[in-house]
């Protein structure tokens, strides 16, 4: 046993072991070393832009990373978002006087009100709708055709959020929603942030609208939503 190395004074580490155990420790060291290097390489390639290696071995990187080591650190990069995207909803209700369509109700404005002057906004206010509409727009063509199963998931999700919010508004006594919910329609309204007052730039600030299709509301959509707080 080497005794000249000062570290093993309290009998720890590889030098405190006899040869058979040392072999086990050395193998473990090698395995851990290789795994660490492999993991760091994979994470690096995952966060790096598309390059020679990822073009060739992208599948291997994805297999290693997803789902548990997925990460995205393009925080406000390459450019910060320069527009406010609002989600508005209107509903078709069956009333005694026949079918009736509400005006557009701004759901994002509800979120913004909840966030205002709150030191600790909830994910339900800050992320739910914002990311759901991102997910929808990212998984649909401009003609609202879903691109695969993820697109259909996002449709159902948007739809359930809308119904949940409407049911909640109705429960709060919103007179606009008197009646039986039959169909809902969502639209996104994109408003560019005006250029800074101190800059010479001018930005067109006219909002642009995108209407999503009408979706029928079934009893199943409403049922659980009412139970949700």
């Amino acid at each position, binding site marked *: 046993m080497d005794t000249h*190395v*000062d*570290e093993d004074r*309290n009998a*720890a*580490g*590889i030098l405190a*072991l006899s040869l058979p*155990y040392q072999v086990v*420790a050395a193998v*473990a*060291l090698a395995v*851990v070393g290789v795994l660490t290097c492999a*993991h760091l390489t994979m*994470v690096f390639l995952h*966060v790096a832009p598309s390059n020679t290696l990822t073009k060739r071995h992208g599948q291997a990187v994805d297999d290693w990373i997803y*789902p*548990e*080591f*997925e990460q*995205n*650190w*393009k*925080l*406000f*990069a*390459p*450019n*910060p*978002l*320069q527009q*406010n995207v609002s989600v508005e909803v209107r509903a078709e209700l069956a009333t005694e006087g026949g079918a009736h369509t509400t005006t557009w109700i701004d759901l*994002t404005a509800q979120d*913004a009100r909840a966030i*205002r002057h*709150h*030191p*600790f*906004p*909830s*994910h*339900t206010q*800050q*992320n739910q709708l*914002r*990311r759901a509409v991102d997910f929808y727009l990212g998984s649909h063509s401009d003609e609202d055709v879903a691109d695969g*199963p*993820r697109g259909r*998931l996002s449709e*159902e*999700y948007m739809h*359930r959020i809308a119904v*949940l919010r409407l049911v909640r508004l109705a429960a709060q006594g919103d007179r606009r929603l008197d009646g039986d919910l039959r169909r809902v329609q969502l639209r996104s309204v994109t408003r560019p*942030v005006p250029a*800074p*007052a101190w*800059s010479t730039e001018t930005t067109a600030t006219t909002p642009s609208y995108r209407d999503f299709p009408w979706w029928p509301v079934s009893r199943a959509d409403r049922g*659980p*939503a009412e139970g*949700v707080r």
Partner: protein
Amino acid sequence: MSTPDDLTRTTATGARDGKAGLDQRLARAVQAVTARALGPYQTAIVRIGFSLTWLAFLLRELPHRHELYGPDGPWSLELARRLVADNRAFSVLLWTDGRLWFEFVYGVAVLSAVLLLLGWHTRAVSVVFMAGVLSLLNRSVFVGDGGDNVLHLASIYLVLVRCGQVWSLDARRAARRAREAAAGPPPRRDLAGPLLWTVLGGFLLATTWFHDVTGEWWVVVLLWVLWLGHGLWWLVSRYGAGEARVLLDVLANLAHNAALIVLMAEVCLIYATAGWYKVQGSRWQDGTALYYPLHLDYFTPWPALSELLASGGVMVMLVTYGTVAVQVAFPFTLLHRGTKNVLLVVMMLEHAGIAVLLGLPVFSLAMISADAVFLPTAFLVAAGARAARMRDRLLRIRPGGVPGQRRTGEGKASGAGPRTLVG
């Protein structure tokens, strides 16, 4: 930064010895990473930071928990099942749609955060903590943000880290054991550990039973390895197979040091990615980038404050350029302790600013917790001593009563290596 410093110093000592060759320096390095779990204070503060972040988040969302993660929320269990069938993410919440099961998992997640914060049976609790974090965050991925992402990764890495060496109930218990052993009578038996192990074994069986809907195979394998490892450690510690115990210690140290390196590399990658992608953005180039987030409805809890900060073009430009410079530079400053520490302070302050200004306290706390892995040991030790003094004063504990805990930590840290870790 103590850890890499330590490694370099270990090799440097070798060089100073004169004729110490490459093989000898290598031997020293190998001995260092097998004999010690490096960075006891850094890993403890990271543990405390992330468990506090998760606890704060869970308590904040308590009234919204059903809407975010419950079986009947907008992202219903059925939707989650369809997504997970595709991406195979780990979540025990997919086992059943029972309301009670959901409440139980949420409750255990809260409890695990408290216990990890206190450092009670840290190794076992960190596994429960990871299971809770992954189960909830993977259950509803579309309500998360960057903060959730950092927490998600950290909870996995922390499982491999010996993060309860100091500032923990474990450290206090170890010190008490040592005192009792020195005093003579045999130490009391620990019942909580074996009991916890047995209970977790039951859950592990359930996880194995449900492995089809619980995530990728390697997570289940990892859980088994950890569980068996903990059992083995207990046996070996109790029945004193001397060398086997040292071997297990070596394996644990290796896993710890590797996970610590990964954790540090992750922080570097976060800043490098955030910085280098910004360099390419026209708004970061023309110095107006900061102005825009301050005018987004979702990130302006204090509109007057945001307006004030965005009102001066030069000010906005300076902060915009400063942000990019700091993020791009950070990984390189690790080569120089002083610069690294200055930048660390700047980044922590910037995150504190983001917490308030953009209304992102969870994200900011998670980032600060991750940054903390680079805090210098001397600072952490001093801060720990000050915190302990404050606690003693608040609790009016006899001066002789408590320092045991603190001394343990330090004793253990320095006892584990020949030198004190001066960051």
